Structure formats: structure tokens, C-alpha cells
């Protein structure tokens, strides 16, 4: 027991902590997926009892949709992309023994665990969990008379606050480690793009989280101290919550997207057997998009009642921000050119993410135009748009990373054939769920409505919901393939060598899995990453490192 505590609960090893983040993210994803199941069942079969749950009443429906968004954004996307992959890989990729602040790292994952428990606990309080959407706008969220929710919302506020503390502390670690603990020869211009995306994401979070954390304090004051920050009758402004939320909320989606793009860069370079096209352009685009992301937030608020004069400037910045992301997409596509393409599940998921994200990104441009947004805001078009951006990032990108780095993390090779099944089932069913929702949105279908059939003009859209729900059930069931793959591989899978994919970055200089101190000898970096050369026996990697014995 003491050994378990010492090795797992109290471990300072970034690799262990990374896996703990992964475990929390996966566990919360199961709850978030269950929430999605409840919603999709009710939409397709209104007022029919859902198997394993029962009848979905309006209040609980709102609670499930709130929980779904909250969990997926704050307790799945960030823990997996930042916490799991970031923590596990950054020290390895920069040639360090651990993160800069191992104890802070341990505290971060503990705080996340506590935050998760607090949020799950809100499921069990009498009046239910928060139910005003993951955005929990004032005044709907403030007063129990609107949603019936009591302490459930306070638990939400505390859980999100703690989650932010965890990510902030983790971000300090990422920034200090990546910028100040690099191996000899690893200049910033030779840093893997995965590390760069983690750095930019951490900077984004450091500067964007504060306003929402302040807003949470203000909201708690409004609910319990009688203050009126967001209450008109007490001199406040409900719109202020929206401004503070989205000032954070927009950089947040890039906090999630960028690490996923980082995974893409690594997977693309390795399986295309060539450098990422336009490394410096990509770097510039990442920073440009980061800066711009602080100037677009009110495109979430075009119809909120804010001054209409704000619509034009925010629309302009929103259109402009598509440019750096287009550059990143073009760089990835260009990397496919003259590529000696190697097939693998990781590459399938990476290609799938790129193609899917393209649709999501382009549909965002429609929403960036206030004239169009006036009709599409709060419809299923928005729901489809953000699932077409977030799902590829978190799920497709996350699985690309899992299949790619599983050998390094767990020392065994996942079954590639099962991986291909997993990809196609996941990817095709995803499109079947969300593509029809664009159509529903353009035909006026509002979001966050528990029973659309109560509106006559929405009744003809019920078949869309039925298709989406069946596809969603397939999507959820398909994840059993990867669960089976992981379980079987951990049990008796083929053991992995140090560099099974022929990567060029420093994590592949270690055994799989790496020993506690990561590198047995000092690692010297002699070249940029992603170098490959044509030899007699095919395209071979030019690793970044050479090992030298200590003097």
C-alpha cells in the first residue's frame, strides 16, 4: 500500500503524472459521453425513456447539456492535450530529466482531481447540477428561480476555478521547462513544433484565464453576498459576464486546438518522412493567431444586445484570424507533397483531423459575419461548427497522439489493424452525427431545446435527429475497439523498441518506456528536427541528437 502511494499518488515523475492526467481525462470523457447519449436519445425519441437512464425531463436535459460542454472543454480536452501529452513529452523532447517544478506538477494533477470530484459531486445534489449551458450566462444562471439549480451551480463555479488553477500551475511548468531547460544544442529554432504549440497554448491560458476567474468570484458574490455585478436591479450588467467569459473563451479554443496541431506536426513529419513545410512560417502563424485570439471574443455576442457598432471591428478581426490558421493548414498539406508516406493508424487519425478541422474552420467564417450570424446564432449550425473543430482536435488529434506515442508511454505496440477499424468507425460515424446538424441549423433549429417536436416547424427535422442519434450510438460503441486494443496490448502486446516509427525528436532517444530519469547519458542536439535522408535502404531519419558520455 505504501509502495502504491509512493509510486503513484505521490510520484513526482512527469511521466507518471502525465498518465494520471490521461486517466482523469478518459474517466471524465466517459461521463461527458454519457451526457451526450442522454441528449441525443431525447432529441431523437422525445419523451421516450432512455435505456440505462429513464425519462429525460427538461430540467435534467439542460443539466446534461451543461455538463457535457463543461466536462469536455475543461475536464477532457485540457487534461488530455495539455496535461497528459504535454507533461509526458515536453521534458523528453527538450532533453530534460523532468519538468522544472515536479512538486508543482504533482499539485496540479491533484487539484484537477479535486476539481473533477467537485463537479461530479454536483450531479448528486438535490436540485441538480448547473443547467444554464456550459457558458452559464447571467442572469439565467444566478437565480434559482430560472433553472431551479441551487448549490449545483456553486459547485460548478468552484470546480471550474480549481480546474483553472491546475492548468495555470501546469502552464508555468510548461513554459519554464520548454524555454529554460533545453539540452545543449537545442536552440529555439530547433524546438519540435509540438513543444512550441504547448508553449503558445500555455501563454494563451496565462493571459486569458484571469478575467473568467475574476468573473467566477463576482458570480459567487452575486449569489451569496448580495452583490450585483451581473444583476441589473442591483446596478450590474449581465452582459459583463458574457464579455469576461468570452474574452477567456475564445483563446481557450486555441488552447485546445494548438496542442492538437502540435501532435499533427509530429505525426506528419514522421510518417511523411520529411520536414514540416515552412517551420518558421508556422511559428509566426502560431504566435499571430495567439495574439489575434484576444481580439475576436465578441463574435460570440453579435446578437447579445451589445452595441451594434462593435459588430464590424470584431467581424474584421475574426476574418483576419483565419489567415494564420489557413497558413498552418497549408503547411500541413504542403508537408504531404514529396512525402514518402508511411501508413499507420496515427497518420490516419492525423489526416482525418486535418480534413475534418478544415470543415469546422471554414464554417466558422460564416458565423464571423454578423449578418449571417444573426440567423445562425444559437442554432445547430453553431453546434455543428464547434464539434467540427473541437472533435477533430480532442478526439482525432488525441487518438493520433495516443497511437503515435503509446509505444513510448507504455512500452508496447498497439495493434494497427484494430486501429484502422477504430479510425474508420469513429470518423465516418462522426460525420453522420454532425453533418446533418448544419442543415438543421440553417433551417432554424435552435440549440439547447429539450423537445424540438413541440415546435411545429421543427417536426420535419426529426429524421435528422434520428440519423444523428443512431450515428452517435455507433460512435460511442466504436470506442470499445480502442479500449479493447489498449487492454489487450497492455496485457500481452508486442514490446516496443526505442524508436519504432523512425522519429527524429528527442523522445525517441530513450528506451520505451523511458527510465525514471529519462536519459541515461547527456544528449547533445546537433540539428533541426524532422530531418530525413534518402539512402539505399529507403528514407531514413536523421535524429536530432547524438549521445555523448559524461566527460
Amino acid at each position, binding site marked *: 500500500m505504501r509502495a502504491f502511494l509512493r509510486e503513484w499518488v505521490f510520484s513526482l515523475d512527469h511521466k507518471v503524472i502525465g498518465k494520471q492526467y490521461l486517466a482523469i481525462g478518459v474517466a471524465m470523457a466517459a461521463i461527458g459521453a454519457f451526457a451526450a447519449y442522454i441528449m441525443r436519445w431525447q432529441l431523437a425519441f422525445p419523451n421516450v425513456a432512455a435505456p440505462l437512464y429513464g425519462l429525460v425531463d427538461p430540467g435534467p436535459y439542460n443539466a446534461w447539456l451543461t455538463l457535457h460542454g463543461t466536462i469536455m472543454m475543461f475536464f477532457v480536452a485540457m487534461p488530455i492535450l495539455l496535461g497528459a501529452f504535454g507533461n509526458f513529452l515536453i521534458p523528453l523532447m527538450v532533453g*530534460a*530529466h523532468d519538468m*522544472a*517544478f515536479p512538486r*508543482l506538477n504533482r499539485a496540479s494533477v491533484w487539484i484537477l482531481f479535486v476539481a473533477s470530484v467537485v463537479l461530479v459531486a454536483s450531479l448528486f445534489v438535490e436540485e441538480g447540477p448547473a443547467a444554464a449551458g456550459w457558458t452559464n450566462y447571467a442572469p439565467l444562471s444566478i437565480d434559482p428561480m430560472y433553472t431551479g439549480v441551487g448549490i449545483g451551480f456553486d459547485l460548478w463555479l468552484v470546480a471550474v476555478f480549481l480546474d483553472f488553477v491546475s492548468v*495555470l500551475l501546469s*502552464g*508555468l*511548468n510548461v*513554459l*519554464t521547462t520548454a*524555454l*529554460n*531547460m*533545453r*539540452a*545543449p*544544442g*537545442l*536552440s*529555439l529554432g530547433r524546438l519540435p513544433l509540438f513543444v512550441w504549440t504547448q508553449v503558445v497554448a500555455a501563454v494563451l491560458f*496565462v*493571459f*486569458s*484565464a*484571469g*478575467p*473568467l*476567474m*475574476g*468573473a467566477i*468570484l*463576482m458570480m459567487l*458574490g452575486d449569489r451569496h*453576498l*448580495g*452583490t*450585483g*455585478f451581473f444583476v441589473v436591479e*442591483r*446596478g*450590474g*450588467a449581465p452582459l*459583463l459576464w458574457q*464579455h*469576461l467569459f468570452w*474574452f477567456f473563451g475564445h483563446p481557450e479554443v486555441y488552447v485546445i486546438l494548438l496542442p492538437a496541431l502540435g501532435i499533427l506536426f509530429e505525426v506528419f513529419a514522421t510518417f511523411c518522412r520529411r520536414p514540416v513545410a515552412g517551420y518558421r512560417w508556422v511559428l509566426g502563424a502560431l504566435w499571430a493567431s495567439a495574439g489575434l485570439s484576444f481580439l475576436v471574443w465578441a463574435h460570440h455576442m453579435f446578437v447579445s444586445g451589445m452595441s451594434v457598432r462593435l459588430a464590424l471591428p470584431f467581424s474584421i478581426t475574426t476574418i483576419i484570424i483565419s489567415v494564420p490558421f489557413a497558413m498552418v493548414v497549408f503547411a500541413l498539406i504542403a508537408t504531404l507533397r514529396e512525402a514518402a508516406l508511411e501508413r499507420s493508424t496515427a497518420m490516419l487519425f492525423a489526416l482525418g483531423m486535418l480534413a475534418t478541422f478544415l470543415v469546422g474552420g471554414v464554417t466558422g467564417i460564416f458565423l464571423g459575419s454578423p449578418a449571417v450570424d444573426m440567423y445562425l446564432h444559437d442554432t445547430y449550425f453553431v453546434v455543428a461548427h464547434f464539434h467540427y473543430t473541437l472533435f477533430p482536435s480532442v478526439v482525432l488529434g488525441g487518438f493520433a497522439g495516443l497511437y503515435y506515442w503509446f509505444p513510448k508511454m507504455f512500452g508496447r505496440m498497439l495493434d494497427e489493424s484494430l486501429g484502422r477499424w477504430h479510425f474508420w468507425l469513429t470518423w465516418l460515424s462522426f460525420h453522420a452525427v454532425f453533418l446533418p446538424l448544419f442543415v438543421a441549423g440553417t433551417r432554424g433549429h435552435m440549440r439547447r431545446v429539450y423537445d424540438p417536436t413541440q415546435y411545429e416547424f421543427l417536426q420535419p427535422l426529426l429524421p435528422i435527429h434520428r440519423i444523428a442519434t443512431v450515428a452517435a450510438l455507433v460512435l460511442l460503441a466504436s470506442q470499445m475497439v480502442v479500449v479493447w486494443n489498449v487492454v489487450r496490448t497492455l496485457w500481452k502486446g508486442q514490446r516496443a523498441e526505442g524508436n519504432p516509427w523512425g522519429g527524429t525528436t528527442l523522445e525517441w532517444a530513450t528506451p520505451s518506456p523511458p527510465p525514471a530519469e529519462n536519459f541515461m547519458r*547527456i544528449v547533445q*542536439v546537433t540539428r533541426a528536427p524532422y530531418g530525413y535522408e534518402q539512402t539505399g535502404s529507403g528514407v531514413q531519419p536523421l535524429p536530432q541528437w547524438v549521445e555523448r558520455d*559524461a566527460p
Partner: protein
Amino acid sequence: MNHDEHNRSGSLASRQLGIAGLYWFLASEAALFGGLCLAVVYLRAGSGDWSNAAAHLSPGTAIVATVLLVSAAGFLRKGSTRDAHGSVPWLLGSLGAGLGFLALKTLDFHSHWTEGFRPEVSVFWASYFLLTGLHGLHVAAGVIVCGWLTGRIWRRQAWPARQVWVWGTRLYWYFVDAVWLSLLWLFYLR
């Protein structure tokens, strides 16, 4: 971790990593207070009787509080240039000044409270109590760190990281002072 400390590109000794981390932490705190200050500006623009409410604040208290906070920073500056033994009085000075600030603000809050000026009265008072309260919590944290530092140095164990810790506390205190000046501008200047 020893061989990490030399010959690494862009690498700092482990003590200096703490300072790098501290800068990023202060950046996040700046975002927190900055966001709150902008929120208050937003609320002030929509509020009718802000100046009237602000008239009930005591400028004298604000001046003394400012002197205490700036002194604490000054003492830390002096203390950071001394050796271990010589820095202790200056750290105690900072600790005292910080405690004095907290005592003063507590009395100030109490007098507002008994006069009936409470957070629920108006958006001015809600903002005032939230921001100065949050700032006070940060001062308290700084006081605790000063106390911990003093205790550790006093115990006279050789502590290589001492200078970096004192320097870090000094940086933190500069930040706390900067926030206080922003609050002065936000609430006391009408």
C-alpha cells in the same frame, strides 16, 4: 540534476528556474487583476452615483496604506542586498509593514461595514470590497512568505537559494504595490 546546470542551451540553474516561473505566475495574476479592473471600469461607466459612493472612502487611510506597502517593498530591496544575517531585520520590517497594512485595511473595512456600506449596497461597494479584498489576500500571502523566509534564514542553515527567494519575494511585492496603485486610481480618484 547536477549535470543539467552546465552547458545547456537556454538552460538556467535550478534556482533561477523559480524566477522564470514567478514571472509567468505574475503575468497570470496581472491578467486576473487586469480583467477585474476593466470589469470595474465597465460597471462604472454604467453607474450613476459612483463618485458619491467613492466620497465615503478615507483618503488618509489610503495614504498611510500606500506608505506601508511601498515601505515593505523598500525594506525588501534593502534586505536583498545584505548577507543572510543582515537581511533578517529588513525582512522583519517588510513583515511588519505588511501586517500594518492588513490591520489598517481591516479597520477600514470594519468602519465601512458599521456605517452600512456593504457589498450589497451598490456596485461601487461590491467592486471595492472584491478588489481590495482580493488584493489584501495577496498581501497576506506575501506577509506569510516574508515570515517563512525570516524563520528559515534565522535558523542559520546554509541556504544557497536564499538570495533568489528574497529576490522573488521582492518582485512579488512590487507586483502587489502595482496592483494597489491601480486600485487607488480606480476607487480613490474621482
